[in-house]
């Protein structure tokens, strides 16, 4: 939870994708937690989990990504989001801004290179610190 090691929550129903991202970001020196669904992610936060950035899939079993995002934002307004989806038609809903949700990055699957996402995470962490 120290500022030096950003804490990341990855929500994706594909464990292999969670593993791949987790591995890469951990190698980047970040603390990474994985969750298989929106409900699980919410449980972790409610259980006292503290995260700087949440990497969120859209198509999830149970509640979908957007619903999860709004719920997480409600629990933890400082949390920043990266949406990572394979849905080509997805666009960030307008209400995210009006709700006061901070900047949200959108990445589409598959990532040919994970480095840009890692940079985006750092940017968001930095942004959070500034605030």
């Amino acid at each position, binding site marked *: 939870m120290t500022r030096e090691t950003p804490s990341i929550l990855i929500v994706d129903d594909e464990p292999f994708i969670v593993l791949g991202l987790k591995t890469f970001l951990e190698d980047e020196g970040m603390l990474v937690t994985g969750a298989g669904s929106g409900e699980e992610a919410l449980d972790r936060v409610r259980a006292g989990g503290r995260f700087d950035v949440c990497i969120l899939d859209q198509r999830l079993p149970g509640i979908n990504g957007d619903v999860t995002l709004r719920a997480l934002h409600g629990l933890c307004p400082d949390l920043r989001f990266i949406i990572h989806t*394979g849905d080509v038609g997805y*666009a960030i809903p307008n209400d995210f801004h009006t709700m006061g949700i901070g900047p949200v990055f*959108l990445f589409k699957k*598959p990532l040919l290179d994970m480095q840009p996402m890692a940079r985006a995470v750092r940017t968001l962490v930095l942004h959070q610190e500034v605030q």
Partner: protein
Amino acid sequence: MPHLGYKRNSLMPWLGLALLLGLLSIGMVAMLDQQRERLQEDAYDQARDDLSLISSYVHEALQNGNYQVIDSLVQEWGTKQRDVDEISLSTTNGLLLGYYQSPTSPVETYRISRQIPYSYKGMATLELVKDVDWIAGRLARLRIQLFSAVVVIGAVLWVIIWLAVYRHSEAVALRERTRELDQANTRLSEELAQRQQAQAALRDSETRLRSILDTAAEGIITIDEQGRVQSINRAAEEIFGYSPDEVIGNNVRMFMPSPDREAHDEYISNYLRTGVGKIIGHGREVTGLRKDGSSVPLDLSISEVRLGNERIFTGVVRDITRRKQAEEQLRRSEEQLRLTFENAPVGIATVSPDGSLLNVNPAFCDIMGYSEDEAQHMSVTDFTHPDDKELTLKLYQQIWEGEVGMQEYEKRCIRQDGLVIDVCVHIGAIRHTDGAPLLFVVEFEDITERKRVTRELQRMRSYLQNIVNSMPSILVGVDPESRITEWNIGAEKATGVLATDAIGRGFAEVLPEYRSQMANLQAAMTQRQPVRADRLITETKGQPRYADVVVYPLATNGSLGAVIRIDDITDRVRLEEMMVQTEKMMSVGGLAAGMAHEINNPLSGVLQSCQNIQRRLSPELAANRRAAESLGLDMSELQNYLRERGIPEFVEGIQEAATRASGIVADMLAFSRRSDAPMRPARVDEMLDRVVRLATSDYDLKKKYDFRKIAIVKDYDAQLEEVNCDRMEIEQVFLNLIKNAAQAMFKAGTPQPQITLRTRLDANQARIEVQDNGPGMDDETQRRIFEPFYTTKGVDEGTGLGLSVSYFIITEQHKGSIAVFSSTGEGSCFVVRLPLDGENRHDPGDSQYTDRG
């Protein structure tokens, strides 16, 4: 007569005389008045002289106051004086100094007085009364003298005037008389001359008459009251064939056939009794009997002559045999002409030079609907259609002037009932022998029905021709020998052979590509059933063309033939192919959308894993070194081992394969994607420039070719500015085209590779051309180039979806068009057309954070 004039004239001198005398009397009275005044003035002067005389006579006595003397002086002076009636001298106080009174007592006096000085004491009054009776006496004398003079002058004047008037009247009467005598004299001599002439003429005519009678062309016979022939002239002898001896004295009925012969005596007695004759005074045609018994037509006129109590009748006969014959001939020929005119099946009219109708026949009346009477009051132009009047008049004029001979022409006429009819007109002029025109003969034939039928036929024919020609099909009519009889415009267009060149030639000769249909042609004609051949493939200029051919047998007027209909359905076939292709692409799109997500997840895992493997094998990562160290593994040894066994290549291979798969999925997704980005105006030149920059720095391109070696030629139309489009998509299309061009040129080793980017403002469209000078492509490639997964590139060079996606973006998303023009070895040119004001798509919202990666 002269008497009367004479008497009237005699009044004139008397009147003149009376007038003259009147004037004289007036003059005389005036003269008397004047005379009296002069005499009175004389008397007055005399009285004043007398007064002066007496005053000087008594002056001295008065001065001396010698009164006794004064009275005697007055008396003395008074007695010496004539004409003095009274003198009195008295003082102012009434003292009478002297007084004289004459013994006479005159009728008329004149009194005059004067004051004269008296002694020293004052004035005395001297009064004188003059006797002026002498004046009246002088005047009376004068009156008598004047009257006498007037009487004398009047008498003299009367005589003179009377003489003058009388003498003049006499002379006039004399002249009148002389003239009457002269006239009577002239009349007498004229009468004499006439009588002499008449006597001479009478003598002359008697001799002449005889010779005239004998030389007259007419026969002349005279008969008496009993009908006996008195004389017969030579012409009559010849007519009847008798000599005078045989005739004279015989009854004239010998010249007559029955029943006149028997009735003739009766005729004469009737006439003598009633004075009414059948022939006498009229003349008529009769039949005469010759001596030889034959009859002869005669023109007979009889006149009656009275000689004293006797009457004779003179008959003049003329042999009219020849005239009768001529008349008969004329009558017959006229009858024939009349019948011809009246029964002619065509309308005939004779027309005067001024265009008015003279005669018309019944057929004319039938055609025009006017009666003969009506027609005769009409002019040619009255029933000519207004549009044809000018032509008609001109033609009449030309014929009249002899410029042209008989003419035939067609015109329209208006019937009496208002109907417009077509007529065929023959017109000619009848001329005198000297060539001068006399009248027109005009023949009218009603050709309305004929014209209508002809028009109807023509209309029907052109209608059918239109139908045949407006068919896009090739329509060819052939006879049983397969020779072309009909060749429509469709056939002309398709083959470039004109109908005039095609008709008459063999079907297979003109259309060799359809030679295969000759069998069908025969079959259709023998079986009398249409024969079809669908999707017949022929080749024109190396291009396959498709056609549906139907052969319809024709049986007209017993002879066989056929119509061949050829429809070029190449375009339709192409369209069908295109639709199949589009459907294919659409189904790919639908499939892709569903697949994309499922494939992308595993691909994510694969790609992420590869990246992690590569990173975790790298000695550069501290964590790696720490892990190796704890295991006692030498990192550099490990690296050597991995290289030795080609592990990085395998991992890279996995990575590349997954990347390609990801690309395919992304491209496929393009088909299903309804772009959500709004259409915005974007500059075409800017988009092209940006794409060129992008291509120059494109990693994939750089890997295999050096894009900078390609000369980029920009030919932009300054007028073309912005098009409403999805910039990202259009740029993707341009990039595809440029990349394809570059790849094709590098692959073919084009010596001086060049890409021309050309823009044009074309009506309401933007035309963008991407042209290369590369190897070009064959027709097969051109046809399939936009097909999904169709590629000429190696497996590692592209997915085969780039142009399909471009095609989709341009035609579906932007309602534009994309086409390629190319031939092998001559480069290719892709032409993109975009509507300038592409429909604005629904804006789904802000997508500023969208990263299309």
